């Protein structure tokens, strides 16, 4: 007799585990299935985000930034350090510890909420049943009136650079190098490629990024992308745009990469190569054909705007469905679905999901880019404020970057906020909340922000929409 639950969730990543916790909070008997095993072959929760994505990368970004600052940055503060050495294994151990603490934290939350964790590969075999396979043993079947699919995504592999040990790696492998590569190639200069490239550059690698697109960071506001490209170049990241990788060979422990761009064919030899060209949804072996679960034309699970699949009672959330592949988007969808199952009204506002790039300076944005407003013919005005004019930024020695606020020309409603600079990842939350409440740029201008803070730059950028920023003089041409 298969064990019955109110809801079964396949996947314990940020979408799945959040959905599980919310379901349990709402009183449902919840089961969560996940097959992720850590380095010791032990089951861990948290999915890609905790184990091979967001968290370990942020830990390494922090550690590598501290290392680089200690080599160059502290002298300006009058702090004279000599003999700084890198202990990479200690840095990696710290990263692993951070990950372990968090995954254990989720395990505790599961226990506290009475969620049944089922270790193994979950597969949908009917719209009410999930089979759990665990190596060779007999598959176990569990049932529920509602099933949420949250299997996540995996790095895309390309035939031109198939993964090979620790020489040609994907993002997971890039978080675990045992030695700092002398020359590091990165295929893909998107968010993941830039973050990983930054980590190793700070630790001493010469980093070359090969980006197939002609434009840099196309999804971000182009003013940010332009400034970011310049800044990263200045930091030493060799970003080559319009560069399509054709093939690669491993020779004597090094990788030779052939690529072509507008100027012809080229070759580079690197010690390690990271493939960071994107991620694809984990639909393989997720469901049997008999279930009739529908995928859309790009291979994601087809869902409506409340994450319902074509099978009644079956939902799908997170990276396996349409939308930005961001942990917080998956989490929010998990909460929405839990609440829908409980009979509440719930929805996700997909227009106000913030994006962040954890380079240095950080980049973050929410809402529409300037190029999108132009393309949609929406009349707008822009207010910009550079961190160089912000007192706190100067005191921190972090003056690179700016904040841009875009508001509707007629209603003044804030339509987009774009930040490159210190703590952009945190500052964007203020803009997101304001936009959720329909704030106009004048509302931000009329709000008191503490001084001296970085957040004041948001205030000043909002003032600049009307040309009224105090700390920057804007020459406005009369119409």
């Amino acid at each position, binding site marked *: 007799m298969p064990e019955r639950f109110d809801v079964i969730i396949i996947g314990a990543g940020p979408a799945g585990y959040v959905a599980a916790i919310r379901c349990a909070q709402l009183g449902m008997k919840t089961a969560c299935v996940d097959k992720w095993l850590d380095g010791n072959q032990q089951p861990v929760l948290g999915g890609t985000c905790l184990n091979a994505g967001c968290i370990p990368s942020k830990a390494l970004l922090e550690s590598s930034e501290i290392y680089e600052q200690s080599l160059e940055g502290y002298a300006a503060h009058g702090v004279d350090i000599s003999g700084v050495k890198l202990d990479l294994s200690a840095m990696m151990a710290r990263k692993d510890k951070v990950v372990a603490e968090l995954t254990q934290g989720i395990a505790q939350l599961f226990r506290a909420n009475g969620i049944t964790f089922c270790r193994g590969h979950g597969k949908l075999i009917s719209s009410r049943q999930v089979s759990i396979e665990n190596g060779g043993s007999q598959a176990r079947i569990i049932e529920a009136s509602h099933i949420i699919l949250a299997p996540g995504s995996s790095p895309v592999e390309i035939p031109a650079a198939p993964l090979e040990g620790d020489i040609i790696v994907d993002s997971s492998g890039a978080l675990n190098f045992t030695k700092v590569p002398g020359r590091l190639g990165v295929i893909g200069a998107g968010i993941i490629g830039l973050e990983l490239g930054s980590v190793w550059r700070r630790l001493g690698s010469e980093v070359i990024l090969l980006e197939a697109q002609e434009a840099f960071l196309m999804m971000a506001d182009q003013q940010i992308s332009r400034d970011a490209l310049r800044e990263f170049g200045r930091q030493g990241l060799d970003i080559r745009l319009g560069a399509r990788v054709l093939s690669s060979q491993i020779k004597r422990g090094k990788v030779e990469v052939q690529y072509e761009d507008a100027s012809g064919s080229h070759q580079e030899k690197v010690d390690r190569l990271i493939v960071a060209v994107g991620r694809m949804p984990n639909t393989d072996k997720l469901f049997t054909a008999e279930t009739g679960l529908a995928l859309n034309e790009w291979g994601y699970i087809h869902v409506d705007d409340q994450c319902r699949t074509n099978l009644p009672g079956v939902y799908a959330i997170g990276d396996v469905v349409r939308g930005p592949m961001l942990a917080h988007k998956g989490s929010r969808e998990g909460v929405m679905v839990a609440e829908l199952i*409980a*009979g*509440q*009204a719930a*929805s996700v*506002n997909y*227009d*106000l999901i913030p994006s962040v790039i954890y380079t240095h300076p950080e980049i973050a944005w929410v809402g529409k880019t300037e190029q999108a407003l132009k393309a*949609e013919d*929406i009349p707008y005005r822009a207010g910009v404020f550079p961190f160089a004019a912000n007192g706190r930024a100067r005191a921190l020695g972090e003056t690179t970057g700016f904040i841009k606020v875009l508001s*509707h020309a*007629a*209603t*003044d*409603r804030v*339509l987009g906020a774009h930040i490159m600079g210190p703590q952009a990842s945190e500052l964007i939350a203020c803009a997101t909340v304001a936009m*959720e*409440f*329909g*704030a*106009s740029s*004048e*509302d931000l*201008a*009329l*709000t008191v922000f503490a001084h001296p803070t970085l957040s004041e730059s948001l205030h000043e950028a909002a003032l600049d929409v009307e040309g009224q920023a105090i700390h920057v003089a804007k020459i406005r041409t009369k119409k």
Partner: protein
Amino acid sequence: MTTTIKVPDFPESVTDGTIVAWHKQPGEQVKRDEPLVDIETDKVMFEVPAPEDGVLEKILEQENAVVVSGQEIAAIRPLSGSEAAQAAAPPTEPADNHEEPVITPSARKLIDEQGLDPARIKGTGKGGRILKEDVLRHQGVIGGGEAAPEKAEPPVAPPSPTPAPEAPVPASPRRAGAGREERRVPMTRLRSRIAERLVEAQHTAAILTTFNEVDMQAVMALRQNYREKFERAHGVRLGFMSFFVKASVEALKRFPMVNASIDGGDIVYHGYFDVGVAIGAPRGLVVPILRDADSMSVPDIEKKIIEYSDKAKQGKISLDEITGGTFTITNGGVFGSLLSTPILNPPQSAILGMHKIEQRAVVREGEIVIRPMMYLALSYDHRIIDGREAVQFLVTIKELLEDPARMLIGV
């Protein structure tokens, strides 16, 4: 021991309801089965009765709160000995409804500068907050159509009409004696749901209407001759609707396409005749169904219609009674309509409209005579019903009504 009052179970398609009215206030005595609170959903109104005698101790969800099945909304405690003997406690003061809505800083600035009354400005922000753009729209500085790209907003907000342009006067106080007031009332759930379905019907089906007229002389003579006998035998009046239902059912048998509906890529021919009869209720139109109308006699039909009318007046029609239906008859004639184009009741494929009976000069056998004439309208879904069929269907109804004996002998 306190008893909790919970929201009753909603049917599957209904996700939540709105508390419309509390009939009792905290402190008031309630009797078993006395109506306690009205909850409105997209389709019907639920009346929750008190499960036992007692005193309403507290209300957990106020009017206009959105609630879900099983949600706790009130608590009742048993009467104490002295209370049982006492008269009911006076109701508490109703909550003050005149709080000022939340206003964003920039909106506040405009309101103060221009001396406006916030109570007259419609707030479209989260939770009804008044945004800067709401004030600008109110002042006519921006039109209703120029609003910023909206994110998902509360479904009941109607589109804003362009306000009577008040010239934006910066320094002067509010205009005295404005005689061109507008009153903005959000649509009730029921109305907005009706609106939604009607628009959906128009967008989905290819709706055409064919007309004809029927000489009601025969039916009226029947009614005249047998009025008393009928009332004595069955206890209800002999109306017109039963004739129309009978004629429609007969016609539906002969033109099965009209009794069918489209479901995805399939045409579903229903093997039964559930005829909906449109009834005007205080909160809007409802269409209760006469199930298996083909096996109902004229008296059955009349009795059922009276039953539904009473229920509709009291808002007591249940979801089951209005769901389904393969054909609908609507009568605009009672309101004086001479001719109209009814809209389909999805997923049905046709609807018959009855109208006012008017004495008109018509020609019979080369002579002008005066007959009680009624225009008939049949709106139909042209995706599955051809023009010829629709016309012939309507002609069949006309002929059966003009000579009711034909229904008896099946020609």
